[in-house]
């Protein structure tokens, strides 16, 4: 067993599995897909040691519905996949959101659309943050940029999922799944969340129903309004964002996940040359740090959004900035991971 505070070298998806177990995850179902099959492999080996259940399901659709079944009983449950597999899970995620059931879903995204390739990409931003499945719902979306942060956000994901009874999606590129970095783990979670809503048998209490079917329009609207209230509360309380060098910055770079990592390196270099460049890194993609970016727009000349996509988060940055200053975009697609030098060039072009 890995001791608390012991530094180990681990790949991101295996570190996430270890963190999930430590966070109290006791049910995992998934179907293998590159670049994150090692997560399932780790769970298959380790989860039963803690009294948990691992199932390699017959499909991604089965896996997400098994997670729903486990979550109904109050068990901390998760599934993971990569882009095409996550697309298959969307119906189940919509049902989880509608039933107000906690669940953690990890997407180690890869080049798309379609079958695409297995190289790192962050082009599932729209799918993750704007619903993905049908109906008026939101996932909480967390975007780690290192193996260490993957561990920390996995703990947070389970806590937020329970607190808001809502699916939490961890979105990171396949690069973070496969890359090994030094990492330290947090202690095993001891406390048990009170879940009076969980269905574990009705002996000694009135029966309860968890469902997403509301045939009467007004009744369903009432349920939808309740969900909207919850998303409002999440927007107010759960924004997480990191910023550097915003003071006096003429150009502010906005990036998340893998792109943020490369961007941080590039920004550090231009700062050393004395150039006034800042960096904003959204850690929660939903809720998006809209107010934070809006405020930053008051003190800068322009934004540059860097993504491993054709331009997705840039739309949320534009909404936040509301045309106050120009918002520019530079993206690479198809699994191309830009170098810090490439970002450096893009940054300097805009100063």
């Amino acid at each position, binding site marked *: 067993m890995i001791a608390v505070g012991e530094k180990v070298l681990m790949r991101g998806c295996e570190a996430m599995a270890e963190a999930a177990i430590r966070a109290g995850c006791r049910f995992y179902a998934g179907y293998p897909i590159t670049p994150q099959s090692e997560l399932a492999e780790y769970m298959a080996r380790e989860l039963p040691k803690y009294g948990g259940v691992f199932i390699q399901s017959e499909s991604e659709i089965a896996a997400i519905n098994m997670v729903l079944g486990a979550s109904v009983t109050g068990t901390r449950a998760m599934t993971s996949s990569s882009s095409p597999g996550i697309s298959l899970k969307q119906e189940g995620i919509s049902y989880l959101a509608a039933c107000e059931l906690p669940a953690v879903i990890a997407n180690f995204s890869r080049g798309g659309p379609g079958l695409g390739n297995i190289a790192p990409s962050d082009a599932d931003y729209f799918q993750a943050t704007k619903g993905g499945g049908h109906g008026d719902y939101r996932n909480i979306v967390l975007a780690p940029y290192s193996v260490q942060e993957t561990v920390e956000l996995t703990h947070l994901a389970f806590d937020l999922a329970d607190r808001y009874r809502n699916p939490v999606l961890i979105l990171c590129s396949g690069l973070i799944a496969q890359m090994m970095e030094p990492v330290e783990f947090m202690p095993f979670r001891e406390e048990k969340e009170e879940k009076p809503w969980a269905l574990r048998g009705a002996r000694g209490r009135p029966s309860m129903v968890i469902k997403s079917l509301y045939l009467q329009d007004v009744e369903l609207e009432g349920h939808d309004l309740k969900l909207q209230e919850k998303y409002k509360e999440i927007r107010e309380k759960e924004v997480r964002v990191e910023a550097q060098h915003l003071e006096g910055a003429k150009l502010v770079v906005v990036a998340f996940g893998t792109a943020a990592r490369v961007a941080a390196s590039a920004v550090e270099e231009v700062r050393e040359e004395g150039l006034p460049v800042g960096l904003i890194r959204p850690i929660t993609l939903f809720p998006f740090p809209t107010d934070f970016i809006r405020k930053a727009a008051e003190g800068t000349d322009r934004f540059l959004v860097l993504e491993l996509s054709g331009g997705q988060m840039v739309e949320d940055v534009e909404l936040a900035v509301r045309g106050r200053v120009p918002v520019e975009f530079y993206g690479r697609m198809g699994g191309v991971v*830009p170098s810090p030098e490439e970002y450096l060039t893009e940054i300097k072009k805009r100063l």
Partner: protein
Amino acid sequence: MYTDLMVSGFGGQGVLIAGRLLSYAAMRENKHVTFFPAYGPVMRGGEAYCTVVISTRLIGSPVVRNPLTVIVMNLPSLLSLEPRVKPGGLLIVNADLADRSHSRREDIKKIFVPANTIAEGIGSGRVASMVTLGAYIEATGAVTLQNAISCLDKIITEKHREFLHLDEEALNKGAEFVRAGHRLQDTGIR
């Protein structure tokens, strides 16, 4: 301090284990380090490679297009990776499986190590990648040899425990080979 290394060869030549050992040793020296393997569908005997980045600062990208240092364990790797080495960088070639006549670059430093011959000399050709890693460590000083040896224990799985001593000797022999006349002063590490 920043340096990066690509190790490439056939699957089974110990390419990934060499990269992981270096990464582990760098971690023990409290440096930032990333290890990024080639992943996905590969066939037995197909191409295997990994990239290690070591720095005293945050590492932006674990993916490197033009590495400062490269170890190639076979001819296909020499042909594909030699053109990518940064000018002034270092190329370590397993001379047993990649003939030096195929090497074209004049603007980089090169060390040709008969890694299989050396490995077989100490008991098993399977530790050839450790010979080249030993040479790399001696030539660059990216980590200390002693530290790398002490990390073997953490990297070698139960299944390959019997190779632990051979791995250690292979690292030493590779380093000795460089010490014996192939020491390079400037290896491009900044």
